[in-house]
């Protein structure tokens, strides 16, 4: 597997949110991987094809503009990466709630697991820190 590395220096003073940065980089190239040590601005990005100048510019822009790491973004990342067992726990509760929702005088539609996880993620913004 061919590997092509490109070095970057992010023009920013904050540490980007790791999950968002990775998602943004992968959106540019699905074979990309990031080498970075928290606390400095150096990045080495690896991918499976030769780098073009346009790709370099696009990655540089992502590095410069991805949102900074915050407790809320980290919490959302954690929720996105809940384990199967955690999701199963949530799903069991959702099923019980759906039973109740269906039995209400005015029945409510069932909720999906994805809707619940999205709702949990949205509540992150309402948690005081």
């Amino acid at each position, binding site marked *: *597997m061919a*590997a092509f590395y490109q070095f970057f220096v992010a023009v920013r003073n904050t540490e980007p949110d790791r999950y968002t940065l*990775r998602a943004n980089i992968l959106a540019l190239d699905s*074979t990309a*991987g*990031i*080498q970075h040590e928290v606390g400095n601005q150096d990045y*080495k990005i*690896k991918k499976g094809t030769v780098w073009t100048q346009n790709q370099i510019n696009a990655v540089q822009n992502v590095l410069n503009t991805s949102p900074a790491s915050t407790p809320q973004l980290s919490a959302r990342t954690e929720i996105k*990466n809940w384990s199967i067992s955690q999701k199963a726990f949530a799903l069991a509760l959702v099923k019980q709630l759906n039973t109740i929702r269906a039995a209400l005088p005015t029945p409510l539609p069932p909720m999906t697991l994805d809707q619940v996880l999205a709702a949990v993620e949205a509540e992150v913004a309402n948690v005081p820190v």
Partner: protein
Amino acid sequence: MTLLPSGTYRKTKGIIRRGIRASQPLAITVLEGTLYFVTDERVIERSNGTTWDSYSNKGLIEQTTSVTGTQNDFDLNGHDVNLICSNASAVIFNGFKVLGAAPTTGDKVTIQHNGITTLRAGHQETGSTAVNRIIGESLRGQIVGASGSITLIYDGANSRWRIDNYNVGTPITIPYVAGDFTGASPMVFTVDSGDLIAFNYRQFGTRFYTTLTIYTASLTVTATGIVWVKLPNGFTVSGGLQNSPYGSLFDGVAWAVAMMGTNPATFTDKFQIFKFDSALYALNNNNTYFFGSGQINID
């Protein structure tokens, strides 16, 4: 002062050794059972009971060398030597003789690694004459990094040097070799040279400690739950299954606590890294990360 033949100084049963030098007390003044300390007497030679050789007026001899590669029957300049090695590349000592002859009980050498690569004392290596060989804890002897040292003492009963002590020195960097990293079949684990951020080890006898950091490696084809990493220096694993905490890993989907272990039924020259819950890896391109340090027993 004229040095008399060695035999003159030898303590022989029934003969009182006194009055041979002018500085010693006269025989007539020596009282039976009294120990006399003579300040200007020097040790010129010493005997192992059979032969005499020079003692150079001191106990510890400092000897320097810049030899590299495999050294058999390396000749030491005394019976108690501090051997300072300024080797530009790796050096392996497979045996020592002393003053051109076979070592004798109690002979001692401390090998100081003043180089920047590695220094190893080989275990029972047959390149050296049998009586000059070394017995270590590990079948691969003892290897030390920069600033390390190994002390050997000669065991006359078994006619071998024995590793008495060692300082392992700085961690020894393991150079990148693509074939050192494999996935449990059929999974393919690809680590490119730019992915190997840190890979080094320290050997404490039969205990092997390693630090391994990998960024942006790949896991492809079909997922399994193990990646294998080859041991350096020809080490082989000891005993059966082993597990120890290693650190963490990311396989493109989620972070996981990672373990390090061995399974000699599969490989004797590799250690494995797997998730704490033995779950399968997720396949990915350039999004596999390993961070950690672990330890296993080696032969």
